[in-house]
């Protein structure tokens, strides 16, 4: 058995091969969705895609929060590897599409900081909530939610 001090390497070494490939495939899918989200945000009016975010009802099932968190990690990993500057909204959109595909109830929240704290960067933010938890986009507040999708 090889020794390696990197936790990431140890993690990969301990995953069965099919699970590792499933993880990689999800990350690739997340990257594609991030690119699509980036294009939508940049070029397509909000009204044309806002109805495709969030999922109110996952068939009456309790949201699989662990799965939502795992998918969120795939999105974050993909985002770090892309050369595009994918900020919070495309990330939230990509995760939302993955969650919708798996029927996991969630919402995408768009929020704003109070006026004295709007000094340019990061005065707006988007995140994904599943159950009572923010599974992607946690950022220290204060934040005031302007809109949730689905509404």
């Amino acid at each position, binding site marked *: 058995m090889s020794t390696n001090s990197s936790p990431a390497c140890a993690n990969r070494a301990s995953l069965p091969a099919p699970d590792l490939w499933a993880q990689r495939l999800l990350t690739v899918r997340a990257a594609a969705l991030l690119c699509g989200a980036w294009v939508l945000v940049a070029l397509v*009016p*909000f*009204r044309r895609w806002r109805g495709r975010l969030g999922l109110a009802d996952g068939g009456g099932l309790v949201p699989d929060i662990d799965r939502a968190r795992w998918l969120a990690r795939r999105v974050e990993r993909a985002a770090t590897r892309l050369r595009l500057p994918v900020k919070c909204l495309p990330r939230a959109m990509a995760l939302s599409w993955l969650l919708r595909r798996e029927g996991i109830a969630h919402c995408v929240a768009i929020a704003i900081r109070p006026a004295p704290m709007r000094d340019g960067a990061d005065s*707006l933010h988007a995140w994904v909530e599943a159950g009572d938890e923010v599974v992607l986009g946690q950022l220290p507040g204060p934040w005031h939610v302007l809109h949730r999708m689905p509404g």
Partner: protein
Amino acid sequence: MLTRQEARFSETRIDDEYVIMLLDTGEFLSLAGTAGAIWERIDGTRDRDALVADLTSDFAAPATQIAADVDEFLASLRESGLIAGS
């Protein structure tokens, strides 16, 4: 009567400010001070003249100035699709 087109926006109040998100474009508007005072009075119970009269009694400014400000603001709200009526 002046009415809000509720389906066209989301709104939140932060202290003395109203922040509005236009659901067609995703743009944000910040309404504070006079604009906020006008916006909060658009509730389906007042027309333009009643709005001006209401603000004139509450603010120490000439009625003509208030009327001009109100007309300009209402025009911008109509252009954004946020209100209807007169």
